[in-house]
């Protein structure tokens, strides 16, 4: 992991005030397509503090991936701004370590070379990164498939490869779009724990989209619940459970209650539309 | 093309459209040129547009050649007649192509080596040390050697450059000093441009090189199976060329009208230059001499330009020329 690689502009603003690692401020976005116009985001705001683990939960099609595209600079918001460490980075690319919803692996690269891609992009020596990537792949249960091409990997294996690729990205803020959706329950739990371990070790800020309320509660400091399209933040939930959190937490009444609360909140939201 | 649509025919020739009411049979005839239309062909256009062919019961279509395909076209009977040249007929016949020359369009060889006057090439020995632009044929080198030998010069001192599609005027602008041209067209154009050139006619050096170019050809089949047609065609064609000989200006106008894309000025000047040369010293237009055929064929054979000697009596015939003396 290369958590000590500094991103230009990341430090200078931080001195001024204890600003947030990532802030989306009043983001509004519509898609126009011939006659129809779809308003997707409607003044959405959220913040991720430095070293914080935040999750987003929201109905399918509400605009979560679109928000990530805006944060990543791929799309320009119609209104609002993205700030990192206090400076405006709206429309700037390459500021986040991003895991897309679809794996988007390059079919002409082996799994290992796909994992190495971010290192190549930041111009770092490939040889040393290769060993690191091998270790990561082994940890993710992919050993033996280093030289397999993506289309010979199973869906879940592709997703894990994409996850590793994101881990290899040097940026301070990680944005994960449903990173474990294609994994079986146990592999998923395993990956969650691993992610938590890594996060606790280096405290990169994380923003994760998930459909799994348990997952969100288990991993996050704060959970944002998104409304239906056009989306804004419906609720911001500070998760009160102490860390490190164990599997046992899943069965505690407080946990179950919070889970139920989020579930109900979303049910109401979905009913509305 | 001038469609002499008038008469009824059981259309034995290709694609005959029949209409009209004249009594005689009309035969469709294709003549294929050797190159784009020029003053070498005036007699054909005159015979067509003055109605000489129609008088003979022929409906003549003049066709532009494909990429060097005239001889094959005529030999295979796709075209009834065509324009070729003696060198071609000679080579073709020794390869078994059944072409027969039936008239010499121009009595003497009007081609030769030309150079802009500033290159100072006045005689064959001046070729030494100069660059020649040709098309890389062994015949060229042999001809050049022949005439340089006569002047006691060394052909190996001429730099031979294959200039492919480029024309004389372009070629002499760069690298090239002299090239082989037909005076009637290129030389006259040079006069018109005011770019004087020195001309060394090959015929002036050797009897053997005073060969016929161009000639009218047909194939052996046609001669054997339809001599009447050949006769009719030749008698009208001869009238056409006689018209061109006697009335150069009108003939030039005829050609310009038939092929309006041509440059009128060049056509007229060229025609005036060429008209007296069609028949020249011959008894009648089109006459061919056996010695001319033999001389040239022998010359070629000696220089290994032919695989085997030419049986010249089959290569040409004067039998179809009108008013045999």
């Amino acid at each position: 992991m290369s958590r000590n690689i500094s991103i230009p502009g990341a430090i200078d603003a931080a001195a001024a005030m204890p600003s947030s690692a990532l802030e989306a401020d009043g983001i509004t976005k519509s898609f126009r397509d011939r006659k129809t116009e779809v308003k997707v985001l409607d003044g959405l705001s959220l913040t991720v503090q430095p070293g914080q683990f935040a999750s987003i939960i929201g109905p399918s099609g509400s605009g979560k991936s679109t928000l990530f595209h805006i944060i990543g600079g791929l799309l320009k918001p119609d209104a609002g701004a993205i700030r990192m460490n206090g400076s405006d980075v709206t429309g700037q690319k390459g500021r986040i370590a991003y895991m897309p919803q679809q794996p988007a692996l390059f079919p002409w690269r082996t799994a290992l070379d796909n994992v190495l891609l971010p290192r190549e992009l930041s111009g770092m020596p490939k040889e040393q990164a290769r060993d690191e990537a091998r270790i990561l792949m082994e940890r993710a249960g992919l050993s033996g498939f280093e030289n397999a091409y993506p289309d010979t990997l199973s869906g879940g294996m592709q997703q894990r490869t994409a996850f590793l690729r994101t881990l290899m990205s040097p940026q301070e803020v990680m944005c994960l779009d449903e990173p474990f959706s294609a994994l079986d329950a146990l592999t998923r739990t395993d990956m969650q724990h691993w992610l938590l371990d890594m996060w606790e070790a280096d405290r990169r800020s994380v923003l994760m989209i998930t459909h799994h309320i348990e997952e969100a509660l288990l991993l996050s400091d704060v959970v944002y619940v998104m409304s239906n399209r056009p989306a804004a933040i419906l609720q911001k939930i500070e998760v009160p459970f102490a860390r490190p959190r164990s599997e046992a937490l899943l069965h505690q009444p407080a946990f179950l209650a919070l889970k139920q609360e989020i579930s109900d909140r979303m049910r109401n939201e979905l009913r509305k539309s | 093309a001038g469609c002499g649509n008038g008469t009824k025919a059981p259309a034995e020739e290709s694609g005959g459209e029949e209409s009209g009411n004249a009594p005689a049979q009309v035969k469709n005839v294709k003549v294929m040129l050797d190159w784009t239309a020029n003053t070498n062909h005036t007699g054909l256009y005159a015979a067509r547009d003055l109605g000489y062919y129609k008088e003979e019961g022929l409906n003549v279509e003049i066709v532009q050649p494909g990429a060097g395909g005239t001889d094959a076209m005529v030999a295979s009977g796709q075209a009834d007649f065509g324009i070729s040249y003696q060198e071609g007929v000679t080579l073709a016949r020794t390869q078994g192509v059944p072409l027969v020359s039936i008239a010499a369009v121009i009595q003497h060889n009007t081609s030769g080596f030309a150079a802009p006057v500033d290159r100072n090439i006045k005689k064959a020995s001046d070729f030494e040390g100069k660059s020649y632009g040709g098309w890389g044929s062994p015949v060229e080198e042999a001809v050049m050697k022949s005439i340089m030998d006569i002047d006691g010069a060394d052909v190996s001192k001429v730099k031979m450059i294959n200039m492919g599609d480029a024309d004389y005027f372009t070629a002499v602008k760069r690298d090239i000093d002299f090239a082989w041209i037909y005076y009637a067209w290129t030389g006259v154009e040079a006069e018109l441009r005011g770019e004087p050139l020195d001309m060394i006619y090959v015929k002036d050096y050797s009897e053997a090189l005073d060969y016929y170019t161009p000639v009218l050809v047909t194939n052996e089949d046609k001669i054997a199976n339809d001599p009447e047609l050949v006769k009719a065609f030749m008698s009208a064609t001869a009238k056409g060329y006689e018209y061109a000989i006697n009335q150069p200006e009108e003939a030039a106008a005829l050609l310009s009208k038939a092929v309006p894309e041509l440059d009128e000025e060049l056509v007229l000047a060229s025609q005036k230059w060429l008209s007296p040369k069609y028949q020249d010293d011959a008894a009648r237009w089109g006459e061919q001499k056996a010695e001319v055929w033999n001389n040239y064929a022998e010359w070629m054979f000696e220089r290994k330009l032919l695989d085997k000697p030419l049986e010249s009596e089959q290569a040409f015939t004067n039998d179809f020329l009108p008013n045999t003396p």
Partner: protein
Amino acid sequence: MRMWWKDVWPPVVAVLLFLGAWQAAVYMFHIEDWILPSPAGIAREAASGAQGLPGHTLATLRLTLTGFVIGTAVGFIIALILHMLPGLKTALYPLLVVSQNVPTIALAPLLMIWFGFGMLPKIIVITLVCFFPVAVAAMDGLARTDRTMMNYMQMAGAGRWQTFSKLELPHALPSLFSGLRIAATYSVMGAVIGEWIGSDRGIGYYMMLQKSAYRTDRVFVAIVIVVLLSLLMVGLITLLEKRLIRWNAKSREVSR
């Protein structure tokens, strides 16, 4: 309207710049007219000496369109057949290459002997020119069909023809259009070459005559017409492509 203009001005400006540079070069290096006429000279000649040019142009255009349509159809059908029968593909590919390597000087006499002096030999020449890029591009495009979509299609029990028409063909369309654009570019020159092998009409015929009459300016008038016709063909193909491949060309609002 605005959009249309936005698409049109860059090439117009580029062409004008090109013509300007040409004119300047002719002027500055004193290039003589009969080597390379200036654009102004060409325009003057085109304006004055019409001389049946519209007729020639029309003849060539008709020949081009006919030949292009037949050529691309042949190319497409060959691609279709060879794609459906992969065994045949490896077998016949070399013959396709052969077809592109018989020079006109050898081909022309044969064509004329077999097919006479009509349209047919000329159309065969254009067809030979046009079919090849279309066939290669279409075959390659067809062979590159997305694997997951193909898997779905096969497991859904689609027949060979359904797989072709509903999956492989739409998937190969962009590639096919690459080939069509190349073929369209060549088609007019194909027609001109066709006319050279024997014709009494058309721009090719006109060009030959002017060439042998040393009228370089008129040769260039003919070239300009060839170029314009060719741009017309390419433009038509591009338009058709925009029509047919709308799902691909949609503005994605991706800021670079």
